[in-house]
């Protein structure tokens, strides 16, 4: 028995074996049963989802589905703007913010007839690696609810891994899709920067943020990626490039004869859980057994990626989050005596500790007298890191890396911010380079039986190449669908 994928549900709908209303009801029931243990959602859209499902069934009755996935439920991270449905970013400061518009990606889902069934939990403003920073309580890992699911797209991972929804969207600024996907045993992809519109994604770090699919298998990732990709005149940074039929193209490749770079800096073993390392090493061997040539490379600037990332991301966030001041929308403090007090108290009371820490770090990095030492230097390192990626991708077709140095960990175990930041050591450099990457379920730790992920990276807009390799790799690994988590809807 395995959890049904979205492409399987699509086939069932297309064959008339089920209806969207039936599916939506089933998933709403699963959510109701398991939500107390998983806490994947900030908002569940019961009535709205059923109404949308009825409309979808009517379309199918007239044989006018909007897409093959018309009527399939989906969840989106609660930092994606949904018209008429509150969008909180898991922050008290946006507790009751109901946007008057739809983000581009959410609009695309609705245009494809998909049923948005819930807004998934996250670390506040996508800042964190455990979903513990949510103002509305943490999400729990379906494999062991005492453990965190990773983050920041923790809710988007638990709802898919726990069978509450067939697939979801997360956002990845430094690993926020790939790390929780790895910790929850699902597939998570960060597309190339500019592949997916950011219009309607509440910004954390604008030059790094990218929306991506979180799914049970690679095929679903290919389908969902196609649905959300494309040029958007509302996002100046979106790429004006055609969108391939990823699910179609995905089947056309082979790993045989492909070169896969293994950067030694990712495989030093330092800070690496032994159980995770064994699974990742086995996965790399599996790549070789498929006929890929493993090329050892060095990416010397990777060691600066955490410093670089936390300067660039925090600098941008300090400015992006300045708008939350209680003036126009969101949380406003009571009884402030003047505007300065209103601003500062609303922000002091509305933001959580990690968000405040990052705003302060970023403000400092941009301050007069520190700009050159911090922000400006970080931009230079970013260029060097990108050059490391370019050099590696010149020697090889793909890069392989672990996703997370450790498996899912207990809540509260990473109280020291630095230890939490180290969770993203293998993921965040990819965002700085802007390229695409995917985390695939690679196996389970021998002792705890917790999921382990492995990443593949490819160059700018090489999603087809990445998915071709992933599709074959996934089959060879044989992990997807092999075990069910402890909590499953």
């Amino acid at each position, binding site marked *: 028995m395995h959890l049904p994928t979205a492409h399987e549900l699509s086939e069932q709908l297309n064959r008339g074996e089920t209806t969207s209303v039936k599916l939506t009801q089933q998933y709403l029931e699963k959510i109701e049963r398991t939500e107390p243990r998983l806490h994947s959602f900030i908002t569940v859209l019961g009535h709205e989802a059923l109404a949308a499902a009825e409309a979808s069934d009517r379309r199918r009755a007239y044989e006018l589905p909007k897409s093959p996935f018309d009527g399939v439920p989906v969840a989106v991270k609660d930092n*994606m*703007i949904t018209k008429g449905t509150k*969008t909180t*970013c898991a922050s008290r400061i*946006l507790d009751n*913010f109901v*946007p*008057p*518009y739809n*983000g581009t990606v959410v609009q695309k889902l609705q245009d494809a007839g998909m049923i948005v069934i819930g807004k998934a939990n996250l670390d506040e403003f996508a800042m964190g690696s455990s979903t513990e920073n949510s103002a509305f309580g943490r999400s729990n890992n379906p494999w062991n609810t005492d453990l965190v699911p990773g983050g920041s797209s923790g809710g988007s991972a638990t709802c898919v891994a726990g069978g509450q929804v067939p697939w979801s969207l997360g956002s990845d600024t430094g690993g926020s899709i790939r790390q929780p996907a790895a910790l929850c045993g699902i597939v998570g992809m960060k597309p190339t920067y500019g592949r997916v519109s*950011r*219009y*309607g*994604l*509440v*910004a954390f*770090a*604008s*030059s790094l943020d990218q929306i991506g699919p979180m799914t049970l298998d690679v095929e679903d990732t290919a389908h969902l990626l196609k649905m959300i990709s494309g040029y958007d*005149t*509302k*996002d*100046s*940074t979106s790429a004006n490039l055609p969108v391939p039929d990823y699910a179609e193209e995905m089947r056309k490749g082979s790993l045989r004869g492909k070169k896969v770079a293994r950067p030694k800096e990712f495989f030093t073993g330092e800070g690496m859980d032994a159980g995770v390392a064994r699974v990742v090493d086995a996965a790399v061997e599996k790549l070789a057994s498929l006929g890929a040539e493993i090329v050892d490379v060095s990416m010397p600037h990777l060691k600066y990626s955490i410093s670089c990332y936390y300067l660039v991301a925090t*600098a*941008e966030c*300090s*400015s992006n989050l*300045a*708008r*939350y*001041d209680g*003036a*126009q*929308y969101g949380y406003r403090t009571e009884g402030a005596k*003047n*505007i*300065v007090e209103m*601003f500062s108290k609303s922000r002091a009371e509305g933001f959580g500790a990690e968000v405040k820490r990052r705003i302060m770090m970023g*403000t400092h990095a*941009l*301050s*007069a007298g520190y*700009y050159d030492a911090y*922000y400006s230097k970080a931009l230079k390192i970013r260029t060097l890191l990108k050059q490391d990626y370019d050099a590696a991708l010149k020697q090889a077709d793909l890069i392989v890396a672990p996703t997370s140095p450790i498996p899912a960990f207990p809540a509260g175990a990473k109280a020291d911010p630095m230890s939490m930041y180290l969770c993203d050591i293998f993921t965040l450099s990819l965002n700085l380079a802007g390229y695409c990457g995917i985390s695939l379920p690679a196996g389970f730790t021998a002792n705890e039986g917790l999921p382990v992920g492995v990443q593949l990276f490819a160059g700018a807009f090489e999603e087809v190449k990445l998915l071709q390799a992933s599709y074959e790799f996934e089959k060879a690994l044989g992990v997807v669908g092999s075990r069910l988590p402890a909590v499953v809807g």
Partner: protein
Amino acid sequence: MDFEIVIGFEVHTELKTKTKVWCACANEFGGPPNSHVCPVCLGMPGSLPVLNREAFTLALKTALALQCDVPRITTFDRKNYYYPDLPKNYQISQNDKFLGTGGYLEIDLGEAGHKKIRIHNIHLEEDAGKNIHPEDKNVTYSLVDLNRAGVPLLEIVTQPDIRSKEEAAAFMTQMRNFLQYLDVSDCKMQEGSLRFELNMSLRPKGSDAFGQKVEVKNLNSMSVVLKCIDAEFDRQSDMLRNGERVMSETRLWDEVKNETRAMRSKERANDYRYFPDPDLVDVDITPEIRAAAQATIPELPLARRRRFEEQYGLPAYDASVLTASFTTANYFEKAVESHPSPKGISNWIMTEGLAWLNKQPEDTTIDDFPVKSAAIAELVKLIDTGAITGKIAKQVFPIMLETGKSPAVIVEEKGLKPVDDSALGPIIDEVLADPRNEKTIADLRGGKAAAMGALMGAVMKRSGGKANPATVTPLIRKKLGLE
């Protein structure tokens, strides 16, 4: 000790585009509060800016017309500060790769000649909204109108090249005129579409060093800027004479007290933490884009002035006065188009038109003049064809100004038509028979041509100004047997 004024300006002008600079909202003055807004200009979470090409082209056109160096790549930066009229709490502006640097505006100082006021930089940014503080002191809230938020704003920062109040006045009027010629902005100071911020310092006469400069904001008309220069001169020179140091600071103009005051600490922003806006991409000013913007630059004031002298044969003074305002020059050319009598039309505009304009508020232009260019042309035509006399015209004009009626209608209604030539005979006979004119007649017969003027005056007087001078002269000569 005598002090010399050193002034630089920051000129802010709202660009005349159909839509705002980052979104599709209408760029229109007025309207009910918050009626021209959308998620982007409200700074809603998740919204993103997209550069309005029209705004960029107008900005580029201005930079090129001011002879600025325009780079191949220009970028946008965020200027971070908290203020309720700034919905994102940062302003998208330019602080590094400006749209233009260098360049100058050459101003005409009359008898003192010309002077180049150099440009430090020119950049494109977004305007903020407006805070509205209710008059009622018991009210504990303020309101924000974001209709203006996101309106494209061009900032032109000059070098501290201005040395007197007179130069400041010339710079402001001529910069406004220049921008109107370029047709990039309405330049209405009352509506805020043109604003001057003053950077001013003093130094001992003869010194080359610069003093501490003070920046003054909230100057909503040119006359206020000039008042402010006087007030700051007094304040700063008193301080310097008393051995005090002038603080480098931003001050606000207090319209009630006619003086500047220091901004309260909370209004003071000292570190804007500029950094490149990651939501916008580099703008590549290709040779094609540059050439296209260059091609939209129209005839500028100096060229038009020369053309007025050559094409219309106007005296230099007329040409300079008429072209000193884009709208006045247009008004003149429109009038000349319907009746080609340049000097006659120029005279009427320069006397009546500009006299009227001088009594109006600062933002008024000749377009607001109740007498339209076609009516002025018609009036001059009536004089030129002898249909009325210059004297009658002087009676007709105030009625045109008051009623807006055409001169021909007024002449008809008021019975101001010239005296029929047949009715002139008896009038002339009476004048010639008048014993007081005996001496004049004798002079005329004796060959004194000037004597004709006196007789003409008498005829005009007797006819109530309605006699046509062109007919009177030959009639007098005939009756005196001088033909």
